[in-house]
């Protein structure tokens, strides 16, 4: 019932009928590229840009193991990893059964991209709708926007470089919704230095996390213990 | 020889009363200078001004020939004092108290010196006991030790025998005499115990209501020409009438409970006796009073308080 409603809502935006073979075929090719990688261990710099977080850049380790294990770890300190970053990894997005919809094309940073929408067929899945922006020439997903039941809408943008052969990005920018943050002054006893502070706008919080990967170790095996 | 203390027109006015009023006096080297006055006469205030605890409203103080205002530290190096009841650090021992005050006076006392001082005041055996276990007399003696530790030239003792038993009073008296005769100190001692002052003082100052009433050597204060003679008769009214008609009227000081006090030359007592008998007065007793107490009472307003008790 939900799916029908969704399709109905999407109708004005669709230029081709549902489950277009071109879109599915494109997705298959993209998936095949992604399937080259069974596991990887990457090192990167994580930059957090959230209105109520002021954290320094952190060197993190990212572990992946097929089909859907992903872990971002800071072994040298504390990093606040957004929950959605794991949920909406590309491998997760393409996991399971879904209905593919061709949503035409779009321009992204001056390049033409193919827009494909995915509707998971599992009614209980957390993912509700994903929109993928695919570079057809290079068979790479350059952007994904995902709506989840629990945590709202996320956006992931990928930039490729050194590891393009494995369809592994050099840089990932992850944008997500956040709750308002405020602790009573009677608890924090902040130092008031007299400067004017911009009060965060209630209900409009969006956070951004950037991961700049410096290196990948691909398909060399990753123990399950790192995902604990 | 220049005086040790020279006080000129010293005045202290507190918010609600005048404590010292135009007081001038001199203390000579080697004096045991008695400072007498009843409670509230201004003795302690004067002593506190000598020790820079209180600022005078007017007047000048010179000690060892130096102005106290401009040479304070130099003077205080040579002065030791016990002011009223000497309160020391109760949680410290006698030895620690003495050491502390010695160092504050600018000396680095060796252990032997400290023990010697404690020996002098009879506290050597209790050197390492906390002061809060001491009797009043022991605290008094320790106070004197702290006043003497830096070997001052001038020692000021304000009520040094307060709260002491007769033996304690005698000990202090002997100590004062020792300091004066053997150690050649100049002492200024204030006391209520007039009988004691009589025994130790060489010179004396008597003040009343902040003013000097008398000053001088003890011997000259009891001028035979100014002896107080007490006359006790059978009929005081008749005696009063006889005296009023006689040459003795000007010598009459006062009448106290039926007795008459005359201030006169003691050598003329026989003349007085003859005149009274010839006048028909029946004399019960005729006594010359020459003690310091009587002299003091005669000069100060203390006798008013005595009357209030006896009448």
């Amino acid at each position, binding site marked *: 019932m939900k799916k029908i409603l969704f399709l109905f809502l999407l109708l004005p935006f669709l230029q081709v009928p549902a489950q277009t073979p071109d879109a599915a075929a494109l997705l298959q090719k993209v998936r095949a590229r992604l399937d080259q990688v069974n596991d990887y261990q990457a090192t990167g710099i994580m*930059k957090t*840009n*959230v209105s*109520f*977080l*002021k*954290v*320094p*850049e952190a060197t993190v380790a990212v572990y992946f193991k097929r089909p859907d294990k992903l872990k971002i770890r800071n072994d040298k*300190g*504390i990093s*606040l*990893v*957004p*929950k959605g970053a794991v949920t909406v990894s590309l491998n997760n997005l393409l996991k399971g059964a879904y209905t593919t919809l061709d949503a035409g094309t779009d321009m992204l940073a001056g390049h033409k991209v193919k827009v494909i929408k995915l509707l998971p067929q599992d009614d209980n899945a957390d993912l509700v709708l994903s929109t993928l922006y695919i570079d057809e020439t290079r068979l790479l997903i350059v952007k994904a926007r995902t709506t989840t039941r629990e*945590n709202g809408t996320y956006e992931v943008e990928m930039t490729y470089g050194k590891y393009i052969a494995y369809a592994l990005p050099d840089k990932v920018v992850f944008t*997500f*919704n*956040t*709750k308002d*943050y*405020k*602790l*009573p*002054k*009677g608890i*924090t*006893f*902040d*130092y*008031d*230095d007299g400067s004017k502070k911009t*009060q*965060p706008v209630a209900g409009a919080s969006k*956070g951004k996390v950037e991961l700049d990967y410096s290196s990948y170790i691909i398909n060399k095996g990753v123990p399950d213990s790192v995902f604990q | 020889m220049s005086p040790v203390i020279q006080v000129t027109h010293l005045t202290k006015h507190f918010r609600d009363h005048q404590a010292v009023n135009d007081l001038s006096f001199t203390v000579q080297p080697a004096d045991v200078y008695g400072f007498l006055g009843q409670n509230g006469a201004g003795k302690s205030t004067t002593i*506190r001004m000598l*020790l*820079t*605890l*209180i*600022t005078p409203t007017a007047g000048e103080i010179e000690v060892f020939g130096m102005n106290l205002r401009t040479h*304070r*530290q*130099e003077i*205080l*190096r040579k002065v030791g004092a016990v*002011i009223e*009841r*000497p*309160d020391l*650090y*109760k*949680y*410290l021992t006698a030895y620690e108290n003495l050491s*502390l*005050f010695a*160092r*504050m*006076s*600018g000396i680095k006392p060796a252990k032997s010196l400290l023990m010697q001082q404690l020996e002098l005041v009879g506290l050597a055996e209790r050197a390492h006991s906390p002061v809060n276990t001491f009797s009043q007399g022991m605290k008094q003696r320790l106070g004197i030790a702290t006043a003497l530790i830096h070997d001052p030239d001038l020692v000021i003792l304000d009520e040094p025998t307060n709260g002491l038993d007769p033996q304690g009073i005698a000990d202090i008296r002997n100590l004062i005499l020792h300091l004066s005769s053997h150690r050649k100190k100049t002492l200024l001692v204030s006391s209520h115990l007039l009988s004691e002052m009589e025994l130790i003082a060489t010179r004396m100052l008597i003040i009343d209501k902040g003013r000097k009433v008398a000053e001088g050597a003890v011997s000259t204060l009891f001028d035979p020409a100014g002896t107080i003679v007490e006359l006790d008769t059978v009929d005081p009214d008749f005696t009063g009438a006889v005296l009023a008609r006689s040459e003795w009227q000007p010598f009459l000081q006062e009448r106290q409970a039926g007795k008459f006090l005359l201030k006169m030359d003691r050598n003329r007592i026989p003349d007085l006796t003859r005149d009274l008998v010839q006048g028909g007065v029946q004399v019960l007793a005729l006594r010359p009073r020459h003690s310091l107490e009587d002299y003091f009472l005669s000069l100060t307003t203390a006798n008013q308080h005595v009357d209030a008790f006896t009448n």
Partner: protein
Amino acid sequence: MWTLLQIELFKIFRRPRTYIPFAAIAAMVLIIQLGLKFDGKSYLELMMSSLSDSFYIPYGMIMNGYLVAFVILNTLLIQVPLLVALVAGDVVAGEANMGTLRLLVIRPVSRTKLMLVKYGASVIYTVLLLVWMAVLALFLSMLLFGTNDMLIARNTVMEEIRRNDVLWRYIAAFGYATVALSTVAALAFLLSVFAENSIGPIVSTISIVIVLTILSEMRIPLYDNTIKPWLFTSHMLAWKGFFYSQSDGKGAALPGTVENLPAILRSLGVLLAYIAAFVTTAIWTFSKKDILS
């Protein structure tokens, strides 16, 4: 001067009541450490309540020695000034009460020097209290809870400081706290000059600090721009400013930086001015005072 200072410190530290604040601090610190050791997660869950939906929170790593020390310092804000007042309020009034003040003043030492030494001894006492607190609150916490990056929950922002960027901030914070507490000591010292009994200055200092702290923390527009900037209590919390880093404009904290150092230095200036005013007034008053005790 050094001899006089030694004597003053000797008197302070031979007195049993001097050690009460040290015991009190030890008790408070240990109570907080025990509480956090056994139930620190509840504390963190409160702190992180608005983040836990969006982020994975490594509670075990966050509850480390640096955070625990910060929590302790935060909690002891009100208490330690009172403990300082206990000693500083007694240095002159206590002597007057004991009857020993007159014995000091008749020594060949200027009243100014006497007062400077007494205040100096109060400051040294304050420093020793803070060192004691540093050892227990910081170093013992580091031992019990380990070290890691430090998270600080501010009113509208959560700050993170890398572990190798923390210690110097604590040193600066303790240094600043010394000045802040010396201001309280100076106030107690001044009030001590007017009294013959130390209870008055101690209670008065505590009352003044509490009332002014409330005024400093309240948000009343009438006071915000008029009185508040000039209250010394408004500047006593500036030690926290050493834990606020600058941002690179994109939300990332810049290690090794202080968000608003000029503000902290201004606050420091205000406190030093108060100290100078209190101590100068105390010395001037005492030099003119008739010692009747």
